[in-house]
């Protein structure tokens, strides 16, 4: 016997004790698919025959069954299931999970069962038990279908069992093996002319007279339902779509209007409103068996489809992840009507709840049903009903291109009952579950990156109290590790170790970039506010942001931010950046100077006071010691102490010089300096595919040079194998740092480099000797300090740098790839969370 069961379903084995259910299960299913009540009794009580713990055992069994089904895994319940009560639970679970329940009955002669039971010494059910079960089974058999089992198979003998073959069949909605490409078309509502125009625009060969349209090679149309009602040519639309469907050129899912039409055609009484009357009249006017064909066509439509390995789902009114690939009346209703709760709005229409706001599924869902002025993607759910029949547009969404192709309605065929404006609620609001707790974030560069609960707890406060609108935050920069500690006595950091890091890992060419001493900033600029609204979902009229490395607005006052962004916009306009890179927005990684602009409080509260007290204090000590030495030229220890304080005094002067170099007074916008050093992303492109010379040169060519605010960065390409190149770069660093430069950043020539599977540091910094006074303290260069400071470990810092780098690139990839906000934000939040990790702040 051939037993066909859906790939995903719950299977109840039904049979008296001893009928061979467990043996049958073992030969027919994977061991993990079978949940046996005996096994669960044993799990919780150490005795599989302990009937007293049956209630608890079934609790545990159904708990596990539910988890499996939620994950979309077939599950077999191996229990007698001869009582209606126990089967009720199975049906309940099937309904809850929107799957079919299947019963496989092992209806073997009672004598066989009794005999088998007798052979088992661990189980001595009296024959009365078997008889009772057999009686219950007999009664049950009639009712199984009625109970709610979609398929019932009965095996009456050992031979039946031996012969049977279980075949798992995919659900009708399962078209995972279809990869498209598709042209998904929104609600047509009888707008035949617009439909044919759209199909032509999409490259279909349309014969409007004979109602046929042949797709371009390889493509298929997918209609999202609501083919008829309200529009002028309902029958024509139906004919065309039915023909395309028949010839294999189109898929079609039903809409609520189609469902209502079907009901009417089948003779049920429905309210003839919302344009149904016209549709009916037009159908009646058609010749031949058209009415019958329409009936059969709609009747045969599948509520939704899952395409392309589960990456694309289409349904008329959308579908949450838990319903995708499932089949039940509930699922079908959702596909037709969307998320409703019985309420109606002030227009008397059912309230449509914004299901997409909750959507966090992996699949892209394309749907229609709710007319809106423009195509809208909320969390990876794209509504493409642009209200053609209401005078809007007919939209096709091309997959996998993710492009829209549209045709304007010739006119308003039907006055909208409620305005087409998107409900304000239709936003991609972030949920606490998108970020909280322990998380593993999948990254292309470094696999799964772990964010611990402590880290996300710490970041939540920072993110929600200080960070800018998350729509703007598509990237947070990673921390950067210094090079290994130098073995030169005078230096904590020296270029040798920076070069060595890369050379020893097989990198032969690096780029040394001058390190500016300002504050790290990430700049997002859109050409205008419309781009900001469309691409970033920021509709407050701003066109960009300058943010800090923790995602805060760099400037407290919006005026300065806006002015700097405007200057950048002008520079990019003038240089032709937008056209050259075919983009309307850009994300830059930059250093913003002066340091004192952002760090003023730090300078005034900490750096300057230390300089003041240190200089004056040591000077006073020197003066006192000089007097003492004059009074007692041979006084024990006086001259040594004087030397010591003279050295201190000198170091405090140097320290003061060091911090002063990075401070200047800002009287106006022209006193700021911005040095971009990475172009992080533009439309369609994350720039980690470009090497650093290309970054530097593109910045020079398109951003800096015209406006003095924007500074190019000095850099040098170093061939690590070349005996002359390395010393030259080292000299460059020495010169740079002895004249007050912060130091340099050494990067591999290519942006992202692996050694085998090991991701290398995207950059290591090598900081100047004088600069480091403001990090390690004014007196760090004395031998007694230096020897202690040299014992520093970089491991944690480096691991952090790599994780943050991987997350940063991932967030850009996700943003550029059109992923929903929550996916981008997850990575950005992850970087911030990592930053709560305690590492030596001096590194």
């Amino acid at each position, binding site marked *: 016997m051939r037993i066909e069961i859906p790939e995903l379903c719950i299977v109840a084995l039904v049979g008296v004790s001893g009928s061979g259910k467990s043996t049958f299960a073992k030969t027919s299913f994977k061991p993990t698919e079978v949940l046996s009540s005996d096994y669960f009794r044993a799990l919780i009580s150490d005795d599989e025959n302990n009937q007293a713990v049956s209630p608890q055992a079934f609790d545990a069994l159904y708990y596990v069954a539910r988890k499996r089904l939620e994950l979309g895994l077939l599950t077999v319940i191996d229990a007698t299931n001869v009582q209606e009560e126990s089967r009720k639970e199975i049906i309940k679970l099937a309904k809850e999970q929107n799957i079919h329940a299947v019963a496989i009955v092992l209806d073997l002669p009672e004598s066989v069962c009794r005999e088998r039971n007798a052979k088992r010494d661990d189980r001595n059910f009296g024959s009365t038990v078997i008889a009772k079960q057999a009686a219950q089974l007999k009664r049950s058999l009639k009712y199984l279908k009625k109970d709610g089992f979609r398929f019932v198979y009965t095996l009456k003998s050992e031979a039946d069992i031996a012969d049977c073959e279980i075949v798992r069949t995919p659900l009708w909605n399962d078209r995972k093996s279809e990869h498209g490409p598709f042209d998904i078309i929104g609600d047509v509502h009888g707008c035949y002319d617009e439909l044919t125009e759209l199909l032509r625009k999409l490259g279909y060969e349309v014969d409007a007279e004979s109602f046929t349209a042949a797709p371009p090679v390889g493509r298929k149309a997918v209609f999202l339902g609501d083919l008829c009602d309200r529009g002028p040519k309902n029958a024509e639309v139906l004919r065309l779509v039915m023909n395309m469907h028949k010839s294999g050129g189109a898929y079609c899912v039903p809409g609520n209007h189609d469902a209502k039409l079907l009901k009417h055609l089948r003779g049920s009484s429905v309210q003839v409103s919302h344009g149904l009357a016209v549709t009916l009249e037009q159908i009646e006017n058609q010749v031949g068996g058209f009415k019958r064909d329409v009936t059969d066509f709609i009747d045969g439509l599948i509520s939704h489809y899952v395409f392309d390995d589960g990456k694309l789902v289409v349904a008329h009114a959308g579908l949450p992840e838990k319903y995708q690939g499932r089949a039940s009346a509930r699922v079908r209703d959702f596909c037709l009507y969307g998320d409703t709760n019985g309420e109606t709005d002030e227009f008397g229409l059912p309230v449509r709840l914004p299901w997409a706001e909750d959507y966090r599924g992996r699949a892209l869902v394309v749907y229609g049903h709710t007319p809106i002025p423009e195509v809208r993607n909320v969390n990876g759910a794209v509504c493409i009903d642009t209200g053609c029949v209401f005078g809007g547009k007919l939209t096709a969404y091309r997959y996998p291109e993710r492009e829209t192709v549209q045709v304007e309605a010739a006119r308003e065929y039907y006055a909208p009952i409620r305005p087409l404006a998107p409900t304000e609620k239709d936003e991609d*609001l972030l949920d606490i579950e998108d970020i909280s707790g322990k998380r593993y974030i999948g990254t292309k560069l470094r696999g799964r990156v772990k964010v611990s609960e402590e880290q996300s707890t710490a970041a939540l*406060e920072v993110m929600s*109290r200080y960070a800018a609108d998350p729509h703007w935050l598509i990237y947070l920069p990673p921390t950067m590790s210094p090079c290994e500690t130098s073995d030169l006595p005078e230096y904590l950091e020296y270029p040798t170790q920076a070069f060595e890091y890369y050379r020893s890992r097989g990198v032969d060419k690096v780029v040394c970039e001058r390190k500016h001493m300002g504050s790290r900033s990430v700049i997002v600029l859109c050409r205008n506010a419309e781009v900001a609204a469309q691409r970033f979902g920021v509709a407050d009229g701003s066109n960009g942001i300058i943010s800090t490395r923790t995602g805060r607005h760099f400037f407290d006052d919006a005026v300065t931010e806006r002015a700097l962004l405007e200057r950048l916009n002008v520079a990019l306009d003038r240089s032709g950046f937008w056209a050259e890179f075919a983009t309307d927005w850009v994300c830059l990684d930059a250093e913003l100077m002066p340091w004192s602009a952002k760090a003023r409080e730090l300078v*005034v509260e900490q750096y300057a006071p230390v300089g003041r*007290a240190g200089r004056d204090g040591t000077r006073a000590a020197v003066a006192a010691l000089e007097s003492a030495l004059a009074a*007692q030229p041979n*006084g024990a220890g006086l001259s040594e102490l004087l030397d010591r304080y003279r050295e201190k005094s000198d170091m405090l002067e140097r320290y003061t010089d060091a911090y002063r170099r990075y401070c200047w007074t800002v009287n106006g916008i022209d006193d700021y300096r911005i040095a971009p050093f990475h172009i992080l992303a533009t439309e369609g492109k994350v720039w980690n595919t470009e090497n650093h010379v290309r970054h530097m040169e593109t910045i020079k060519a398109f951003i800096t040079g015209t406006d003095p605010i924007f500074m190019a960065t000095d850099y040098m390409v170093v061939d690590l194998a070349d005996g002359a190149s390395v010393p030259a770069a080292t000299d460059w660093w020495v010169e740079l740092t002895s004249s007050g430069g912060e130091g340099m950043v050494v990067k591999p020539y290519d942006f992202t480099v692996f050694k085998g599977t090991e991701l290398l540091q995207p950059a290591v910094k090598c900081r100047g000797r004088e600069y480091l006074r403001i990090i390690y303290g004014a007196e760090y260069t004395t031998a007694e300090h230096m020897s202690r400071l040299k014992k520093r470990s970089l491991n944690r810092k480096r691991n952090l740098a790599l994780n943050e780098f991987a997350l940063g690139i991932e967030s850009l990839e996700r943003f550029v790839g059109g992923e929903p906000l929550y996916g981008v934000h997850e990575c950005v939040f992850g970087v911030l969370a990592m930053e709560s990790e305690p590492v030596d*702040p001096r590194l």
Partner: protein
Amino acid sequence: MLLTITYTGRDTPDLGYLLYKNPNRGTQTFDLAFGRAHVFYPEITDTRTTAALLLDIDPLDLAKGKGNSEGLFDYVNDRPYVSSSFMSVAISKVFGTAMTGRADSRQELSDSPLDLSAEIAMLPCNADFAMLARIFEPLGYTVSYENCVLDERFPEWGESRYVNLSLRGNVRLRDLLKHIYVLLPVFDRQKHYWVGDDEVDKLLRMGEDWLEAHPERKYIVDRYLYRQRDLVGEYFSRLNDGVSEPEVTPVREPSLNAKRLDAVFSALKDAGAHSVIDLGCGEGRLLSLLLKDGQFTKIAGMDVAQSALKRASDRLRLETASERISERVTLFQGSLTYRDGRIAGYDAASVMEVIEHMDATRLAVFERVVFDFAKPRVVVLTTPNRDYNAVYEKLSAEDMRHGDHRFEWTRAEFAAWVKAVCAKFGYRAAVSGIGEEREDYGSPTQMGVFERCE
């Protein structure tokens, strides 16, 4: 970092006998827990002798073992270069005997007032500079000081808080040392060690003879003891030999915070709410009020700061609470800029003094989280009334009441926002004031009580 004491008169090198430090020995060095102290004499003449105490603090030792919580502060730190509690400790270590007044060979000199002066280099003066005179003059000193700009290159950064302080007077050496010992930390206000019970002992000992009668005694004691009320109380009670000073407790007007809690509590009570969630519960003051009232059967507190939740949990003693209380009260970390299923399902939500801590641009999200997703039947929300700021003398027109406030609304602005929220999310609301009401300015706090239209 440097203290010099100069004795003017005849046979002034005798200062060495009083300090127990021989002037002719070059430098003498003493090890301290945080570095070293050097004593030497910059001037030794018959008529004028100066002793110097120079601190040599190891900055790396200072930073050690402090973890990373303070960031770079530990590494770039003024402590090695200023005259702070480190100096006080050094004085007591190096000149301990002199402070007792014992001077075996020159006892008479030690017991006599002398013409002494002291120069204290780089005293961090965390007070009005005028306080220097008000503190030292009653002790018989002529006070002078010089202060300096923070950085001469950047005059716009203003003055530094450091002063070079000179004291001149006819005093006993031991008194001079004790005055300096006690008063350095009074000005600096950053002790490098834990201020505990033994600080009261020290203050009683070092302040004997002079502190009791000092007109600024309260100021000195408060600051020396870090304003720890129990320590200050202990000082005064022990000073009077166990007789505690009659603490004048005027009948005080309840604080604004208390009034606010009371008003919000009443609003929740009157609304007939049984389950309440306090959004931004802080350390749980409102929660503990709610807990005492049986009407509230389900109470939750949410805050974005884990530290606040810990304090709330301590205040409510949740760790050791009975099962019934544990079932009644929940605390969790959450944020009002993320949608959160845990906020839903309460009759009422309170949002006290929270929204002004959010950037105005994030308010739209907050509105949706509270009024659209959680949508409790009642929302009680308070925020400062900007109009009232005019009443506070210390606030200028642009100032806000708290450094973290992102905005403060006038009554008109608040009313407009309340109206907009009601229209958007289907609520009706009543707005009122909390605290003393002033004509033209209203009350310091404004409250909106929102009720969902059914």
